[in-house]
């Protein structure tokens, strides 16, 4: 998924606060503890069955059951994969963003690299990752599992890293100065300034990343690599198998399970997390509407979680703070500034040298690989890039055409927003890839149905970015401007031309950038699909990548990946960045 530039995300409506009956406090705490206990038992069972599957011998071609009764366990497998991938993503993204924001030299390389990495679709990483992991753990299922997790990771990590980086870059000056004046250690600065300031962006981007994980789940759990057919038991492979076999009943069961898991996660994890993140809002005055959440208020009572925090996490944080503070003091006394500077420069050069050598070798090998592709094949590749380009932009235009009027209508009417926003959020959270087989059932019979289906999948996967940004943009148009338009009796056309379109422009650009990147990435699943025993394919760069990955044609895979990354980065540089600049200068609403 591409990185969304930080923008005020639309928030869902506020669930009513849990009214706490007087005197029932302990009864509640007791209930929560029982629930936590049950959950712990479920977790232990889950860990046990996952351990049995991961550390067992390799089942490269595991039989994927189509029995709905195996769905709960499959859902658990997939969920754990996504969450483990997300945890790795978060750690990696924090390190990446931190390095990019704190070191000018690293920033020079890391930020353009981020641009390129996030334009590479997950399947392009597949052969390398899979072969490496299987080689690392030849006799255990763990290798295949890790491979799948890393694939999911490559789809989740970049936007989180970018969000953290840009948050760090926008920390207000007075807070930075306060941290320096009061001699915060690196750790204290990270824990009390950097991380809290970035929390809201991290939460929204985490939600997007996990949604991206679901979107590409089918591609990450079941794939062909040369002569090997990899299948991991999970929700994605269940759906994929159902689609290949044309088993409609199983398709619907799988879809229903996925929707249920996503909705549950939304209610049990994301909603409480968003409500909790509210305290990190950077505001000096309390806003009128503060997010409340039933589950969060449950947790905040004297429950096990709070007690566990006090017992375990708090002493750890305290220990880190004090250790780093003392360390910083000692360092200030013993090392003069010049010495440490010199030392750091030396290690920097050393690592840069090693990196250069490795990179040089990599470029040389890649060049040789690319030379294997014939000129005719390159011509075909460019042609398919053109086709995907048309498809992506068609999806964007259709997306913009319906989302702009609908988004503006929702944004202008608080009444409409109250019941439409949660609906839209629910719709957006269903991964389009899971819906896709059902859609194909209908479209496959039409002429040009494959073309329509490919564009439809891109549209389904990315229109929400545009919609939510337009809603946020419409909400941000000041009331006095709207009133002025009414007072001066703007015609409907004038209203759109002079007020609404310029007003939502920055948000629209943000939405379109995200949607464009997403659509390019989605092309690998939209243009190539195993369905009813055959392969449904629309000619394009995405299908070329998928086919090359399936057949183990590394040279074609490399060439097509390179072309896709180049095209996406070029579009970003030539089009989106310019529109962005326009949006942030001319169309910025300032007071």
């Amino acid at each position: 998924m591409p990185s969304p530039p930080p923008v005020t995300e639309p928030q869902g409506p506020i669930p009513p606060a849990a009214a706490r009956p007087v005197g029932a406090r302990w009864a509640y705490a007791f209930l929560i503890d029982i629930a936590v206990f049950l959950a712990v038992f479920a977790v232990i069972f889950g860990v046990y069955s996952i351990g049995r599957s991961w550390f067992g011998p390799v089942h490269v071609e595991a039989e994927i059951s189509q029995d709905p009764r195996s769905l709960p366990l499959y859902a658990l497998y997939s969920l754990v994969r996504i969450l483990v991938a997300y945890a790795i993503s978060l750690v990696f993204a924090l390190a990446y963003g931190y390095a990019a924001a704190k070191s000018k030299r690293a920033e020079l390389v890391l930020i353009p690299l981020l641009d390129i990495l996030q334009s590479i679709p997950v399947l392009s990483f597949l052969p390398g990752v899979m072969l490496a992991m299987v080689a690392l753990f030849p006799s255990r299922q763990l290798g295949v599992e890790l491979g799948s997790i890393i694939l999911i990771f490559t789809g989740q990590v970049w936007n989180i890293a970018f969000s953290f980086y840009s948050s760090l870059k926008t920390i207000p000056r007075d807070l930075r100065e306060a941290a320096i004046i009061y001699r915060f250690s690196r750790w204290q600065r990270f824990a009390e300034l950097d991380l809290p300031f970035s929390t809201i962006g991290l939460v929204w981007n985490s939600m997007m990343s996990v949604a991206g994980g679901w979107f590409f789940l089918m591609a990450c759990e079941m794939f062909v690599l040369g002569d090997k057919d990899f299948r991991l038991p999970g929700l994605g492979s269940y759906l994929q198998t159902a689609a290949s076999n044309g088993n409609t009943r199983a398709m619907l069961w799988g879809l229903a399970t996925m929707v249920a898991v996503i909705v549950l996660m939304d209610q049990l994890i994301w909603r409480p997390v968003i409500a909790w993140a509210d305290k990190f809002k950077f505001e000096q005055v309390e806003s009128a509407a503060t997010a409340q959440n039933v589950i969060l208020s449950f947790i905040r009572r004297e429950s096990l979680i709070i007690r566990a925090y006090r017992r375990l996490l708090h002493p750890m944080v305290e220990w880190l703070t004090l250790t780093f503070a003392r360390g910083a003091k000692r360092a200030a006394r013993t090392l003069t500034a010049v010495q440490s500077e010199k030392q750091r420069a030396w290690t920097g050069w050393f690592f840069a040298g090693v990196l250069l050598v490795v990179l040089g070798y990599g470029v040389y090998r890649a060049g040789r690989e690319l030379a294997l592709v014939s000129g005719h094949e390159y011509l075909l590749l460019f042609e398919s890039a053109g086709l995907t380009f048309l498809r992506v932009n068609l999806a964007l235009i259709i997306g913009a055409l319906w989302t702009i009027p609908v988004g503006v209508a929702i944004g202008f009417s608080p009444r409409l927003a109250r019941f439409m926003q949660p609906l839209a959020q629910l719709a957006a959270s269903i991964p389009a890839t899971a819906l896709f087989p059902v859609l194909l059932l209908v479209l496959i019979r039409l002429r040009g149905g494959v073309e329509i289906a490919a564009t439809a999948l891109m549209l389904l996967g990315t229109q929400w970015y545009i919609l939510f940004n337009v809603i946020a943009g419409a909400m941000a148009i000041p009331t006095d401007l709207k009133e002025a338009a009414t007072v001066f009796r703007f015609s409907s056309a004038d209203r759109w031309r002079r007020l609404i379109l310029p007003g939502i422009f920055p948000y629209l650009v943000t939405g379109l950038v995200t949607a464009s990147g997403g659509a390019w990435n989605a092309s690998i699943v939209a243009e190539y699909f195993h369905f009813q025993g055959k392969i449904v394919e629309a000619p394009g760069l995405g299908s070329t990548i998928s086919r090359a990955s399936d057949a183990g044609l590394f040279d074609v895979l490399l060439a097509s990946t390179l072309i896709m990354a180049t095209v996406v980065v070029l579009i970003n540089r030539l089009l989106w960045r310019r529109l962005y600049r326009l949006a942030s200068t001319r169309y910025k609403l300032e007071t």
Partner: protein
Amino acid sequence: MYWHGQPVEGETPNVSIVFQSFALFPWLTVIENVEAPLEARGIGEVERHKRALRIIDAVGLDGFESAYPKELSGGMKQRVGVARALVVEPEVLFMDEPFSALDVLTAETLRGELLELWLETKIPTRAIFVVTHNIEEAVVLADRIIVLGRNPAHIHAEFNVELPYPRDHKEARFVELVDLIYRALTQKDHPETAPADLQGMHAAAQRRYPMLPHTRPGGMAGLLEILVDQSGRADLHVLADELSLEVDALLPTMDTAAMLGLLKLEEGDAIITPEGEAFAKGDIQERKAIFRKAVLANVPVLRQMEQALKAKANRTLPAEFFQDLLDEHFSEAEAQRQLETAIQWGRYAEIFDFDAASGKLTLTDT
């Protein structure tokens, strides 16, 4: 810079700052904010808590320990800022316009509380530096007042205040001192107080392009109208009161008017000139005409801009052209601001039009 007779380099002097914008961490509660500097010094939890509670009590925030900053009013927020600065028991405390973001009454209260902490030696701090644009505030609080000049920064004047605490705003000696400081502020800088090596260059720039105060021409009208009401002559601090402006807002406007010959400054008084009176009484078009004449007579850079534009066949030049000229005499950032101000004035005087999108200046037809 020296600290206890030793160069500051390598040392970490025990100092603290109170910020104009409070600079509190919004995700930390009051007590967590106050404890943060102690954490940085590696002080354990129990001791930290004790010291934080003591200082929170001293600044009168008892009962708000677990509140978040956004729940507090401006005055309370700054109390947290003060508590956070004092909790490390600094030897020297710096306060950067600590009360300027607060309303008048709250600021007055906080000043009183600060004095109380200081006079009753409830805190171990040995000196407090306060930066302020409020002259009365300086006279209420300080033992010693230093007036700074700029370009390059230098000490412009110095006063010792020997009035007993608490000081009364209405007392004759108080009023006299305020007046004296205003007078010092409006006096031309004494170049001999500037470091010798900078003098030459500075003086040359002054001759060629006197520094423009960064004001909008429209602001002068209000000032001149009040002067007319005061029958043409008024004390600066009376004007500041009437306009409810602090010196950092009042003086640039005053300087602009003086530069253009619309008023004269004499011994802390502003005296209106005939042109100034005409400006105050004129309508918009008359004011613009007076302004144009005054600007072309007194502001070399605008005169030069007009001539350069006239010399071009298409009467158009990019603004950067003038930026380059100014760059030789000012720092880069200052040259930018000087140009912005000159463009602002030139547009008001209808000497030229400016197209922000293309960055081009075009001579106005007359």
